[in-house]
């Protein structure tokens, strides 16, 4: 690992980080995670033919589903990532963020307000946009872009300062690239297809947005944080600096081109579709190089995973990440796409990446950070930690396997030209099972959140008890 993370003493490091901002963002992220989980569960009930709120306009499944996706992106992930960046960025750069009190506070309130306005607008005002991950109403999008520019100022300042003295650590590359990508991506995806273009050309832009919000905001932040937290927890440097470089530049070059693979066989010109297929297969190599780096870092100390739950979250998520990307390289081929596009296969894939990978990563990181924020040594309950981990892991695997199977059943049934209703009926057992997996994931989340609450509120006596135990 580069020198920047470990040169300064522990005392000095703690003064760099504003604990309140980390606490607030992580707590809000967790609250939104539970809410969007509930929303997803409500939507899955509809697929089972159960309507908890029939005839109530603002709880109609179609609207609830948009809260599920937009909330997962903006309410949960953006909050969690911002909180964890407030922890990691000052620590690996050695400089405070631009402004904690005013800009930090403003950004926190602004983000929560943006999410709540989105919820009200989609549920009650019927003001949704038909862009996946960009369901926020169009009049709110300029505010989100402005927020992202402030975000870039807040975290760009310490990274720039550190970069002038020494080469940046890997996390710094990922975060600095993200700070440029995200405002560009959000601007591109929300304005161009709506105001400056239409039809197939706009479809290409839109698909690029669908992919790049995940690819150019979530992926770089998540990998950057992984590169920070894994060596810190394991107390040893990454296996290969060269592989880190290869992974980063591979991701940076190929990832932005992937978008159009969401609309293969569409009226988008074929060369754009081929370039997306090529880039998606190429990205698999970049991802594998990153994964090899992480796995080799683990070599010789794998038993840590037995005791250290945060690290276990991270490595579980890393394996899910590799599975998703491997699956991706296959299902973007035109042959596979014939069968699985428009089926639940895609939904399973999305859940494995957003919940299984990025969800697990931020949950692990948050669990590492949380007790330290409150001056405690460990989480309140080891049992709850373990229980939540197993419920979440088994839940997400169950959902992924189930939806992938459902996708194949639907795809082949459609090719078979059976009556449409057959594919709905055949899918029902899979959808029931999906709701069960959803309950498992929700229970795991609630257990996890309970543990957080107890860690924050439990008295010192308990802490001492734990130490003696």
């Amino acid at each position, binding site marked *: 690992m580069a020198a920047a993370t470990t040169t300064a003493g522990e005392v000095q490091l703690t003064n760099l980080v504003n604990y309140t901002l980390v606490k607030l963002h992580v707590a809000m992220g967790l609250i939104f995670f539970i809410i969007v989980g509930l929303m997803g569960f409500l939507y899955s009930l509809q697929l089972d033919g159960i309507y908890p709120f029939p005839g109530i306009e603002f709880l109609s499944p179609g609207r609830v589903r948009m809260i599920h996706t937009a909330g997962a992106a903006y309410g949960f992930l953006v909050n969690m990532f911002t909180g964890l960046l407030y922890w990691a960025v000052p620590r690996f750069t050695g400089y405070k963020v631009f402004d904690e009190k005013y800009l930090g506070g403003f950004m926190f309130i602004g983000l929560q307000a943006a999410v709540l306005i989105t919820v009200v607008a989609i549920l009650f005002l019927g003001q949704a946009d038909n862009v996946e991950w960009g369901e926020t109403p169009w009049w709110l999008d300029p505010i989100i872009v402005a927020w992202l520019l402030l975000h870039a100022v807040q975290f760009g300042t310490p*990274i720039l300062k550190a970069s002038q003295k020494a080469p940046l650590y890997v996390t710094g590359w990922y975060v600095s690239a993200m700070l440029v990508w995200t405002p560009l991506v959000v601007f591109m995806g929300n304005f161009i297809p709506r105001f400056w273009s239409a*039809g197939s050309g706009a479809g290409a832009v839109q698909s690029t947005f669908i992919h790049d919000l995940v690819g150019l905001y979530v992926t770089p932040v998540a990998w950057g944080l992984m590169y920070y937290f894994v060596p810190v927890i394991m107390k040893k440097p990454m296996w290969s600096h060269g592989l880190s470089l290869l992974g980063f530049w591979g991701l940076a070059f190929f990832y932005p081109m992937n978008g159009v693979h969401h609309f293969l066989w569409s009226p988008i010109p074929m060369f754009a579709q081929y370039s997306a297929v090529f880039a998606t297969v190429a990205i698999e190599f970049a991802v594998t190089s990153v994964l090899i780096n992480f796995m080799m870092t683990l070599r010789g100390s794998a038993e840590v995973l037995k005791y250290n739950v945060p690290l276990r979250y991270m490595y579980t998520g890393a394996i899910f990440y590799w599975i998703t990307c491997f699956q991706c390289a296959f299902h973007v081929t035109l042959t596979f796409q014939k069968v699985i596009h428009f089926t639940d296969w895609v939904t399973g894939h999305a859940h494995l990446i957003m919940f299984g990978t990025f969800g697990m990563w931020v949950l692990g990181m948050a669990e590492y950070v949380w007790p330290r924020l409150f001056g405690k040594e460990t989480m309140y309950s080891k049992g709850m930690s373990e229980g939540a981990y197993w419920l979440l892991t088994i839940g997400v695997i169950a959902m992924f396997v189930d939806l992938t199977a459902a996708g194949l059943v639907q795809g082949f049934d459609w090719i078979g030209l059976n009556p449409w209703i057959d594919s709905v009926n055949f899918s029902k057992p899979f959808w029931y099972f999906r709701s069960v997996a959803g309950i498992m994931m929700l229970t795991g989340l609630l257990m996890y959140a309970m543990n957080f609450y107890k860690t924050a509120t439990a008295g010192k006596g308990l802490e001492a008890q734990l130490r003696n135990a």
Partner: protein
Amino acid sequence: MGKMERFPFVVLVAGLLFFLFADFISWALPIFVLKDIPMKKVSDLAAEAKAKNTSAWADFERIAMYYPEQFKKYYGEVNEKSFEKALRIGHHWYVAEGCWNCHSQMIRPVSNETLRFGIPGVSNTVSYPSEYQNELQAPVLWGTKRIGPDLIREAAVHNVDWQVAHLYDPQTTSPGSNMPGYPWYFEKDKNGNIVPNERGIGLLTYIMWLGSWEVKPTKEWALK
């Protein structure tokens, strides 16, 4: 190696250069290839529907005839202006309800999709670029998931009566369907009949417009 690990280099090369290169391939080039296809506004679509006397226009008149009081109250006369208004309202609520979450609007040239979703009796009705080059496909409504069938040729598949019943209570027309009912697109008239309201008429018009550019109006329907 050292240079590749500095903020300005990362921001300029990875952040801007690579991003713009990718966008050039997957965004600017496709737009350039498609630039000769005219871009239509909703008013153009309405004018076209009337001039070509498409099935959407006939269905719009049919709705006005079925629900004269409602129609008069919310839309006035049957003309290009009211058709445009209905298309806009229908499209707005189609998006707002997230209909596109379950119903795609794109027929791919694979897996016999033209047989399943195309116009009955017409073999080649794959989606083509020019039918999307209009204001109502900004952003496009291709969707990424199908739970219900594709709707881009819906005008050829079901008639207005079917759509009304389906929208109010989907199980009556499609037993076993897991689509929710949308009773808030309907209201009761003086005689206690359930009739579509302003949004309902808009949504019906929009749905019956989908694919109408490919459908010939039926012969027995005489325009007044």
